[in-house]
């Protein structure tokens, strides 16, 4: 591939923007710690999503101004939050009843690897000296109605993150329904990567060459067009 991916790929903010466009009005949404949290910034006007955090809050809002933090009011990333009108508190088992009972419309997470059968690896690199730490990821991926991933299309070394089969420890099996990558939007269904959108600047073949499983096309592939962020 002659193309430099770095020159064309979306920023994390742009990936978050694209993911936010698919969140419908009234959706209950859980955003993973870190990059996925950016999705909240890009809710389309006129739509209200209600954000859930594992530690027992539904309907939280923006971060408070520095100095206004109340450390009893935090999200799963242990960052201070504020409440929107209509928020509620509940204990951890009730919070995960929402997750595990399938009441969340969308969970958006980061990923190390996503396989074409929907398997997700995002919690442990499997290294000998790594300290395992899973949090709520395994709960979220097995139960939300839609499980979306926001991610760079390739690793820092240029290796595919969308793979034939995960080689890293799994977070969940057959759980991912859509991937918003830095190059494309890919659905996962019936064991296949289905390409829905790609950056106009990359050809199908070039995209396939940095994707570890076969990209299939079902109908047309739209241009992935995202405003500057």
């Amino acid at each position, binding site marked *: 591939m002659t193309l430099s991916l770095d020159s064309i790929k979306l920023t994390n903010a742009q990936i978050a923007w694209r993911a936010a466009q698919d969140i419908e009005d009234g959706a209950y949404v859980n955003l993973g710690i870190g990059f996925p949290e950016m999705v909240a910034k890009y809710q389309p006007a006129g739509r209200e999503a209600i954000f859930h955090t*594992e*530690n027992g809050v539904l309907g939280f809002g923006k971060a408070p101004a520095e100095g206004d933090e109340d450390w*009893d*009011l935090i999200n799963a990333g*242990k960052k201070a939050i504020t409440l929107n009108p209509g928020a509620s*508190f509940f*204990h951890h088992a009730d919070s995960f009843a929402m997750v595990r009972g399938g009441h969340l419309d969308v969970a958006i997470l980061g990923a190390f690897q996503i396989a074409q059968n929907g398997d997700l690896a995002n919690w442990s690199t499997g290294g000998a000296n790594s300290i395992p730490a*899973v949090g*709520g990821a*395994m709960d979220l991926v097995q139960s939300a109605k839609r499980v979306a991933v926001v991610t760079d299309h390739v690793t820092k070394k240029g290796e595919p993150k969308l793979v034939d089969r995960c080689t890293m420890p799994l977070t969940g099996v057959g759980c991912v329904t859509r991937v918003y990558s830095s190059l494309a939007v890919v659905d996962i269904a019936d064991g296949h990567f289905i390409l829905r959108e790609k950056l106009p600047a990359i050809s199908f073949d070039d995209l396939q060459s940095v994707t570890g499983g076969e990209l299939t096309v079902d109908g047309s592939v739209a241009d992935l067009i995202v405003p500057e962020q």
Partner: protein
Amino acid sequence: MDKTTASLAEAVSGIGDGATVMIAGFGGSGAPIELIHALIDKGPKGLTIINNNAGNGHVGIASLIEHGMVDKIICSFPRSSDPVAFNEAYLAGKLQLEVVPQGTLAERIRAAGAGIPAFYTATSYGTDLAKGKPVAEFDGKSYVQERWLKADFALVKGELGDTYGNLTYRMAARNFNPIMAMAADVTIAQVSRIVQPGDIEPENVITPGIFVDHVVEVAEPKQEEVLIREGASYP
């Protein structure tokens, strides 16, 4: 009947060597830091600690670890902004770790409180964390069997507590507190204010007193997150 206890030291006086202790809170939110520090003062060894995390900085659970009081931690996420206490003990092989998905951890605790010895969940199916656990299929989907998780003691942090042990919580500090209160043989609550029965509206009681054994007032509790940002250590 009066469940109040005059001092933190008295409140934790029953916790001996080898006890399994649930400590509520999620990060610093809802963490009963004064009870933990009273436990450090008492100094039992060989504890198993159940918490969502595994300590941060040099206060609370991190300080319990630094004092060599902890043999095992059961948690979902042993990472923190300053995990040196846990990391050193764990990498030195001095500390056993059982990592449990956060929802499974919460549900196992709730199951203990509700008399459910085992249940099935989709969470962790097909992953390393399900290894060795029974698997069963219901309606064509596969699930992992998980066991209840009980403790000898639970340390919880409430906002109001009446003399019967009825508790309320402050905002997201609720988190693991109500379910841990249900799951331990002895539940010890620190509260910001002790009130009389009837002062908490019956509709607003979050943890009914049946789950609480001892209530001790800590009028202006420290916030663990603030202590950590200040670089505090205990003692």
